[in-house]
């Protein structure tokens, strides 16, 4: 017997939890099934070495939807911030660092043109990012849908672009699809500034600075701030705290959350979902299944391609979802000393991407299936602001390492050891002696991220954020409205609009789609 009123959410990542919270608030019976022992998915805090804890995958919050945070009362459910609005420190081996925030240079030497350019660049990109931000909480229009809502949705997007004004609209249309290399070269002189700014456009993506779509990826990254997020922030207790607060909000609204409950498959009754079967063999009936897992895992792993029509399967198979970034965690016996950088600034976001060519060369290796010999890094030392993460006097360093392709040639222990060694070499160049301070380390290649966080391809965003996989084409045309082509099945993860980053919007939009379909029935 199918309990048609029950809704199962597969996966307790932050989007699954947000979705569950909204559905429970709407009075639905919701059960969240998380495979891991704790909720959070890729927004999780975990102990990687005894007494050293770190954000296991995502390590900065900059996209969390402020409306969701407010509506779900995440603060009253325990979410506190260790740091909000971090500065960026572009590290130079010689110690001529650049420190900037929101387009304003705070420390370092730049030409007058670069200073002015930085402010203008930031303002303009933020303005463009606002167009994406406005789409975050809209269900993307269905291509060729022809209905009134579809036309209105498309018209709203067109109007947002038109309202930029003639000059900015032209500029937006000119650069939205192109590469960050060309854009930065047009504006700036300083190689260090260009290298650091470019990193924001390629992190986590299968893109080098010269790859088209990198401007779009940058705008996506900035869209959180454009929507009112305070920018780069670190929650007290690590990124897992966001998930914990969402879980608490979902529970408070009446949702049941079960951890260590991996789902084996989604069950069907003729052409509709009828529930899920757990790895344990337990069957849970439900009229609606919302999956926080990535599209391939949901549709091929849990449902099975044979239950879907071939054209759709073909499109999902070609959803580009190969990860390109590794995650590095270091347990340090003391605070590393970066050359000519105050310990105060060591708590900001540190980036190692000295120039555009360095970054492009790092990408060149990855294109051909190798980890970068000279990786670029985004580094945080969260234990400076959050003493709960490491024993007194000791620290944890969390870094995103570019590039590490999801490729069998760059997988396994040897590749892992080699990239760890290269990362430490790069770090040691900027913070001499750091290597000797390491008491424990962990490096997660995309294949490890795939295994650990159950994300096919180990891609942070469940799939590339590129024009052809964006909005009404995310994950694939014809299935971009959260509802999958099988009755009662929905996606609510980063593989849907508006994509990756710890945002929560995909979860909330999916909940709205479930409720809208119920109303229409």
């Amino acid at each position: 017997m199918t309990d048609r009123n029950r809704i199962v959410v597969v996966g307790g990542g932050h989007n699954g939890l947000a979705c569950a919270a909204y559905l429970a608030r709407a009075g639905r019976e919701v059960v969240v099934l998380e495979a891991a022992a704790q909720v959070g998915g890729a927004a999780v805090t975990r102990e990687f070495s005894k007494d050293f804890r770190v954000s296991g995958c995502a390590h900065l919050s900059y996209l969390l939807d402020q409306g969701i945070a407010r509506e779900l009362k995440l603060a009253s459910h325990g979410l506190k911030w260790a740091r909000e609005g971090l500065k960026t420190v572009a590290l130079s081996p010689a110690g001529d660092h650049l420190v900037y925030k929101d387009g304003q240079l705070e420390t370092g030497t730049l030409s007058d043109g670069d200073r002015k350019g930085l402010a203008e660049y930031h303002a303009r990109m933020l303005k463009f990012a606002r167009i994406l931000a406005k789409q975050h909480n809209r269900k993307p229009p269905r291509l060729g849908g022809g209905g009134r809502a579809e036309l209105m949705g498309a018209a709203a997007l067109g109007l947002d672009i038109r309202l930029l004004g003639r000059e900015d609209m032209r500029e937006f249309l000119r650069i939205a699809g192109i590469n960050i290399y060309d854009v930065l070269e047009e504006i700036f002189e300083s190689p260090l500034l260009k290298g650091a700014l470019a990193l924001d456009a390629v992190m986590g993506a299968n893109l080098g600075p010269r790859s088209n779509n990198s401007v779009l990826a940058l705008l996506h990254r900035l869209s959180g701030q454009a929507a009112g997020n305070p920018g780069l922030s670190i929650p007290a207790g690590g990124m897992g705290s966001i998930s914990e607060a969402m879980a608490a909000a979902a529970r408070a609204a009446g949702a049941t959350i079960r951890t260590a409950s991996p789902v084996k498959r989604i069950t069907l009754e003729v052409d509709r979902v009828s529930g899920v079967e757990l790895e344990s063999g337990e069957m849970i009936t439900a009229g609606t299944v919302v999956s926080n897992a990535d599209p391939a895992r949901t549709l091929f792993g849990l449902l099975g391609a044979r239950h879907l029509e071939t054209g759709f399967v073909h499109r999902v198979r070609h959803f580009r979802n190969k990860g390109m970034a590794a995650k590095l965690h270091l347990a340090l016996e003391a605070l590393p000393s970066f050359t000519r950088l105050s310990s105060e600034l060591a708590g900001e976001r540190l980036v190692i991407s000295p120039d555009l060519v360095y970054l492009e060369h790092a990408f060149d290796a990855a294109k051909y299936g190798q980890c970068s010999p000279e990786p670029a890094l985004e580094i945080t030392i969260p234990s400076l602001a959050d003493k709960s993460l490491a024993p007194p006097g000791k620290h944890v360093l969390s870094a995103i390492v570019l590039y590490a392709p999801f490729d069998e040639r760059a997988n396994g222990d040897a590749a892992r050891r080699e990239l760890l060694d290269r990362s430490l070499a790069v770090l040691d160049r900027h913070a001499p002696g750091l290597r000797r301070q390491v008491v424990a380390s962990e490096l997660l290649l995309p294949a490890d991220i795939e295994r650990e966080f159950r994300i096919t391809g180990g891609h942070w965003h469940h799939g590339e954020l590129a024009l052809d996989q964006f909005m009404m084409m995310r994950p694939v045309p014809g299935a971009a409205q959260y509802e999958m082509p099988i009755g009662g099945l929905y996606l609510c993860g980063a593989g849907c609009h508006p994509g990756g980053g710890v945002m929560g919007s995909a979860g909330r939009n999916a909940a709205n789609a479930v409720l809208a379909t119920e109303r229409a029935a």
Partner: protein
Amino acid sequence: MSIKDAMGHKEHFRKCVWESPFHPRTAALNIRNEWHRWKDYSTADAFFDEQLEYAAIRNACAVFDLTPMTKHLITGPDALAFLNRLVTRDVAKIRPGRVGYTIWCDDNGQVIDDGTIFHLREGVYRLCSQERQLDWLTRNAFGFDVTIVEDTHDVTGLALQGPTSCAVLKAIGCTGVQNLKPFEIGFYAFAGTELTVSRTGFTGDLGYELWIDPEHALELWDALFDKGKIHGIRPMGTHALEVSRIEAGFLAAQVDFHPADQAIMIDRSRSPFELDLGRLVDFSKPCFNGRRALLEEQKKGSRYRFVKLDIEGNKPARSAYIYDKDKNVVGTVTSAEWSPSAKKNIAFASLHMPWGRPGDELWAEIYYQRELKWYKVMARCHVTEQPFWDPPRRRATPAADF
């Protein structure tokens, strides 16, 4: 060099049109030397006289070389599940030793091709189709434990069609072949190999299709023409086949519908309902390609109707526009011939909904030329439900000798 070696050879491009293993015989018999290219094989348009060849189909028996037909062998634990997701009908109902006519669609419920599924032995299927399908089949195979081998060039085929066809098969040693029911498959020892016979065909008459390996192709041909001589056996080309298939009510891809995977304009393809093949769509199957779109079409209504027309006069209405009584164009003819057996001017037409209901007043605009002068007639069309040719011997089992 066998056909397989030749087609698989890296030098294949030096000869882009192939000769069937029957070519030494068909070439000798083709006194008109008229050929066209069918899926990269030379195929005879007609051998001596298309009307006499047609007459052989209906009054004795005629042989058509089917070798160029696209064939795939489909095996593996998921072969049935694979086919059931691929095609619109329920393949589980095609028992071992049976053949089923079917169509397959894309996700939009538009027909990609039609063909026959031969359930040769338990779990071993052969799909025969007009168009090349390896790409689509391979795409369909994701998620299934299934093996797909294109064996177009490894199996030769002959259609033996007409009232005396059963007698000829008995004479070449297919003992008991008269007991094969329509769409049934039989296996017979022949010349030290196995001859597969199916009671199938494209003529709507008593007839069989014969399948054998290329090495034994000529022996089969010679046996048929040797033993068939007193039964009036003749070779036939595509002209004669064309008349008989329209009489029988059979569609041809590229003629009566445009394969959906080749259509560029979205309204150029057709759904099964728009080809009057709704009987081949089984919605009780939980998933097959096009199911969601076809359910939607059932709700919203189809765009087109496919009809058989009996047209007044004797000028075939090839490619004619069809008009309603107010001279509005409501569709076009896709196939048309004079039917010698029905003594009717027959056609298939694709009409815009709601046209094509029995009793609708429809007119065909027919052009024909006499000594470089064009004439036009407006001929009244009558929608007919039954095929133009459907003799009892087509189904009678055991098959008679005539």
